[in-house]
C-alpha cells in the first residue's frame, strides 16, 4: 500500500480500501495504517467502531442484505428480517453463521424504495419480497452452497487418492 500523504484525512479512505480488499479491517492493517499516518491505535479503533461500514471480523462467503428504509419498513421489512434470521439461525448479536458461510446485514436505505421491500443476495437485488419468498431464496442459497461444498470435498478427496 502506498500513501502519498501523512494527512489525517487519509485515514477513512485507507480503512475503506482495506475493507474492500479484505472484507473487513484486520488488526495488522490498523497497526500499519496507524504507523504510516501517525494516528494512535485507540483513535483508529474509535473511528472504526463509529462508522457502520467497517467490520472488525471477517464477513461470510455470501451476504444477504435487507433494507431497513422507511418505505421497506412500512411494506413489511421487519417480518422479512425475522424470517431470514430464523432460516440462517442468526439473531441481533450474531450477524454471521458459525460456519462463516452467510452474513446477514440490516442496511440503511439504499434508495430502491419503489421496489420495497428490498433484499440483496450477494450482488443480486430482489424487490417486492415477502417473508415466504425470502425464506425460499435463502434456502436455495444454502442448498446451492452445500452442494458446492460437497462437490469440492469429493474433488479434494479424489485428488488425495
Amino acid at each position, binding site marked *: 500500500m502506498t500513501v502519498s500523504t501523512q494527512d489525517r484525512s487519509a485515514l477513512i479512505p485507507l480503512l475503506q480500501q482495506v475493507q474492500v480488499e479484505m472484507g473487513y479491517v484486520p488488526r495488522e492493517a490498523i497497526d500499519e495504517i496507524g504507523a504510516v499516518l501517525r494516528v*494512535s491505535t485507540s483513535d483508529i*479503533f*474509535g473511528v472504526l467502531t463509529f462508522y457502520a461500514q467497517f467490520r472488525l471480523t471477517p464477513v461470510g462467503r455470501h451476504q444477504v442484505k435487507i433494507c431497513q428504509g422507511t418505505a421497506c419498513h412500512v411494506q413489511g421489512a421487519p417480518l422479512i428480517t425475522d424470517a431470514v434470521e430464523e432460516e440462517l439461525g442468526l439473531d441481533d448479536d450474531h450477524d454471521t453463521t458459525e460456519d462463516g458461510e452467510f452474513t446477514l446485514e440490516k442496511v440503511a436505505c439504499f434508495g430502491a424504495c419503489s421496489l420495497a421491500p428490498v433484499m440483496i443476495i450477494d450482488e443480486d437485488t430482489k424487490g417486492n419480497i415477502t417473508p415466504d419468498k425470502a425464506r425460499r431464496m435463502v434456502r436455495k442459497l444454502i442448498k446451492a452452497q452445500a452442494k458446492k461444498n460437497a462437490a469440492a470435498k469429493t474433488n479434494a478427496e479424489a485428488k488425495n487418492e
Partner: protein
Amino acid sequence: MINLKIDNKKIEVPDGSTVLDAARAANVYIPTLCDDPLLEPFGACRMCIVEIEGHRGLPTSCSTPATEGMEVKTYSSTIEVNRRTTMNLMLSDHPLDCQHCVANMKCDLQYVAGYVGVREQPYEGETRSYEKDRSNPFYVRDLDKCILCGKCVRACDELQGRQAISFGYRGFETKITTPFDLPMWDSTCESCGRCVDVCPTAALYDKSAEKNGLAMEETRTTCPYCGVGCGLIIETRNDKIVGVRGDRENSVNEGHTCVKGRYGWEYVQHEDRVKKPRVRRYLLEGGSKPKSARESEDNPLWDWVETSWEEALNITAESLHQIKKEHGSDSIGFMTSAKCLNEENYLMNKLARQVVGTNSIDHCARL
C-alpha cells in the same frame, strides 16, 4: 476586554473568554460536568445551558464566546426544566449507590444532581453493564459510572498527548475504549493519573481510594522525584497520606504529574522506610569487614545499625579519604540525583573534582 452582563451583573473579561468563563469571573455558578478550563469546550453534558438575549434556543455557556454587550440569563424555568430532564436521563443509566461509592461527597455528578434538584427517577430502561477493569496497578475503570463527558479522553490527548483511550462505538453503546477494547494495562497508558483527576464520577478512581474515606487535610508541596519541580497536593487523613494529585495552580505542571509523583507515594509511610542514617556494625564498633558473601551471612558485624548524621558522615569521609590514599582519586566515582537542587548538585561537583580530585561524576537522569 469584553463587557457583558450575567444575570444582570456587569462583568469585564479578557478577549477569547467564553460565557462560562465570564460567569465564573462574576461568581455566578453554572452547573457543568464536561467542562474543564484546561480543555477545549466539548458541549456534551448540556448542563451549562443558558439563555442569551438575541440567541435562539439554549446555547451552552462552555462553548459560546462572550461578546460585547451580551446579556446572559443563567436560570429560568425553561433552563431548569431542561437541566432536570437531562440529569434524570443521565441518572437513568448510572448506578445509584452513592453512599458506597468511592466518589461519595467528591463527585461532580452528585453535586450537580443536588443543585438541579432531582427527586425521582421517571425513566426506567436498559443500563450499561461492564466489568470493572482493574488491570492497571494504580487505578480502576468502572464504566458503569461513566457519563461520557469525555474529559479523560481529552485530557489524555490534549494535556498528556498520549491518546491511550478514545471514544468508541456510538449511540447508547458509546464507551470510552482502549484499542480493541483490551484491558487498560495493555494500552499505551503511562499511568499519569490525569484521567482519574478529571473524572467527575467514580468511573476512574485510584485504588488507594478503596481503602480510605475522604481526605481531611490537603498540603501543597513540590514533588521530590525529579528536578522538574511539579506542584503536588498531598491529601491526608489522620496524618497519613491517602492520595496525591497534581496542583493545577502550580505554573510548572498545571496539575500534570507523571506516574511517580502521582502514584509513587506509598513508601512515605511504609514500615520498612529508612528514616535515620545507618551504617554496618563493623564500621561503628570496629572489627574487620567480611571478606566474602558467605562470611557476611549471619555475621552480626554486617548488620545495619542506626546512628547519627554526624557519625555517618564522618565514617563516609574517612572511608573516602582512606580509599583515595590507597587507590588514588580515580578509584572513586560520584553519582548525583535529579531529585537534588541545582545548588546541591553544584556542591557535589565541587566535592568530586576539587576535594576528591576525580572527573568521575554523573547523574541519574542520564541512565
